[in-house]
């Protein structure tokens, strides 16, 4: 049996120690196996972050393939079945062990005390600290980290330094059941199925199947109850109506001359409301829902810069053009306006629209131009919309042509 070979090779060859071939070249080993470069450390090379203290070095990053990283069993001979392990100890090992153990105990206790300090710190900061102060959250976090980390480091050091290390071996058992088990189970199910009589009674079987299928229809109920608002044509329209004044998010109606050349303003519809006495007032307050599809940018270009699309020659007014602010790609508000190049950039996916050319999409994932809002100025000098957008604003959808 090859067991002897496996378990007791430990006398002569300390260092076939993982690591790259370059490492080995740098630390040559004599053919006999003794390290040529001197230093007993040849075997603790490898990806090591922390050189050991007296109480043993640690090997960080156990190599994934341990067959390639023989460790020298200089001190421990493996236990045979039922026997006790025979340990070859260097002289004074007992004394060294005892000191190392005491040091480890103190270290573990230190970390547990760190945790107590952290917990106390957390509680004190929580009740005494000033919630608005800049130090509050960092102190809380730091104290909590001490409270948790102290116990964590303590336990792990305890396990690593004070608990016995072992190679416990456990059998794996195949999951597949024996053939007779399988046969018996299959037979049980088959007999039970025969007892139900489903195979013999097609009427019962078919009506049950039918009832089950129809029952599935119940799923539709909660699903459709999620909304009372059918899509219908909702996506085709916005809040803009003929004669709606342009109002800013602050509630200011925009007048001709308010904006300088090269200016941009986000505007919403102020819908005209006819009072009982016949006067018309404009509702400057815009709800969240109206903002979501009616947001529009009003840009003032220098005279002659605009190149209107055919049929839209009168949609601009004195160099002012208005386009939907909702990106035709994914619906973000497009509003990074470069006043020199007249590009509108969407901050979400970086589609670029050319304002001078009817807000045509010239870069990025958007494929449609931003819809244009036809604007005019009423007799009081306020900007008004001539009508709603002539196409759906925002991202495209299946029903859109």
């Amino acid at each position, binding site marked *: 049996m090859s067991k002897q070979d496996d378990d007791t090779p430990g006398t002569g060859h300390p260092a076939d120690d993982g690591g790259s071939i370059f490492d080995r070249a740098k630390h040559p080993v004599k053919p006999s196996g003794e390290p040529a470069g001197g230093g007993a450390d040849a075997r603790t090379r490898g990806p090591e972050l922390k050189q050991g203290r007296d109480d043993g070095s640690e090997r960080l990053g*156990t190599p994934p393939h341990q067959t390639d990283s023989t460790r020298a069993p200089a001190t421990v001979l493996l236990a045979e079945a039922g026997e006790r392990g025979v340990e070859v100890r260097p002289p004074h090992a007992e004394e060294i062990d005892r000191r190392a153990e005491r040091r480890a105990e103190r270290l573990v206790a230190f970390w547990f005390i760190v945790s107590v300090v952290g917990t106390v710190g957390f509680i004190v900061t929580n009740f005494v600290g000033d919630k608005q102060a800049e130090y509050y*959250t*960092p102190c809380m976090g730091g104290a909590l980290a001490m409270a948790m980390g102290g116990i964590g480091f303590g336990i792990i050091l305890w396990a*690593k330094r004070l608990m016995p290390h072992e190679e416990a071996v456990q059998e794996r058992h195949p999951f597949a059941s024996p053939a007779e088990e399988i046969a018996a189970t299959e037979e049980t199910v088959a007999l039970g199925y025969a007892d139900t009589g489903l195979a013999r009674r097609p009427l019962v079987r078919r009506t049950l199947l039918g009832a089950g299928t129809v029952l599935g229809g119940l799923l539709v109920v909660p699903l459709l109850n999620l909304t009372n608002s059918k899509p219908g044509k909702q996506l085709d329209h916005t809040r803009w109506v003929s004669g709606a004044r342009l109002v800013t998010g602050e509630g200011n109606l925009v007048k001709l001359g*308010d904006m300088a050349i090269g200016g941009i*303003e*986000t505007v919403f519809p102020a819908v005209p409301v006819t009072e009982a006495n016949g006067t018309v007032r404009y509702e400057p307050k815009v709800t969240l829902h109206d903002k979501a599809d009616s947001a529009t940018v009003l840009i003032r270009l220098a005279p002659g810069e605009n190149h209107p699309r055919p049929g839209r020659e009168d949609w601009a007014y004195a160099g002012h053009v208005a386009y939907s602010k909702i990106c035709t790609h994914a619906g973000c*508000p497009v509003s990074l306006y*470069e*006043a020199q190049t007249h590009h509108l950039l969407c901050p979400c996916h970086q589609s670029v629209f050319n304002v001078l050319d009817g807000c045509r999409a010239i870069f990025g994932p958007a494929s449609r131009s931003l819809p244009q809002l036809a604007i005019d100025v009423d007799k009081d000098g306020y900007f008004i919309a001539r009508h709603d957008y002539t196409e759906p604003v925002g991202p495209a959808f299946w029903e859109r042509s």
Partner: protein
Amino acid sequence: MSDMTASVGAARASVRRRRRSSAVVLLVALAATGVLWAAFAPRGTAQDTADANEAVRAGRALYLQGCSSCHGVNAQGGNQAPSLVGVGSAAVDFQVGTGRMPLAAPGAQAKRKDPIYDQTQIDQLAAYVGSLGGGPKKPVITSAALDDADLAHGGELYRANCAQCHQATGAGAPLTYGKYAPDLGKATPTQIVEAMRTGPESMPVFGPGQIDNADATAIAKYVRHLSEAPSAGGDALGKYGPVPEGLLAWLVGIGGLLAVCLWIGARQKV
């Protein structure tokens, strides 16, 4: 290569000739405007006028020395630089005060750097360019006005008008083809209002008809708050939102915990 340079040079020369002729026209027009202005301008005290004239004279001397090679001897502009007639003193104070002008090297956009002129010189330059007529004047923002400004209202205006480019935290963001909206961390309240009024480079103009002076001051106050207020909840990670957060989660969070795994999995020699 040299052919191309030559042809480009020829084209430039013809442009220059054309510019020169238009510059003559412009000069005549300017002279006429100047005479008219001199005739009709409101008179201050003699001392003020003398001071102002002195500043304009000194500013012109500085201008000829530092700016005229690109913007032209009479600020009429050149093929590399725009005309400064009508840009106003606010634009000069902003561009020179933030060190963007004089331009070190042409690029997609002028970078903010330490100004090479002191404030007196900048004021003289601004006075000279301002004397060319038109354009927004350098705003005066007193600390009292800043104190009175409504911070929350400034924040709302900032989010509505500025955040789309300069980012909600004022850290700046890129525009197309190498241009960018700069970080606002170093901008003074005066510079912020100047930028709104003059629309430097890619920035749109926000005139007083859109955002009045009180609102502009409030925005400036909010921008200063963004860069000066202590950050709640630890380091702000460059105020760049989820990208540095994700990076930190991977490098420090996952990296650190993997190091802990290595340590726990390391074998303690017995």
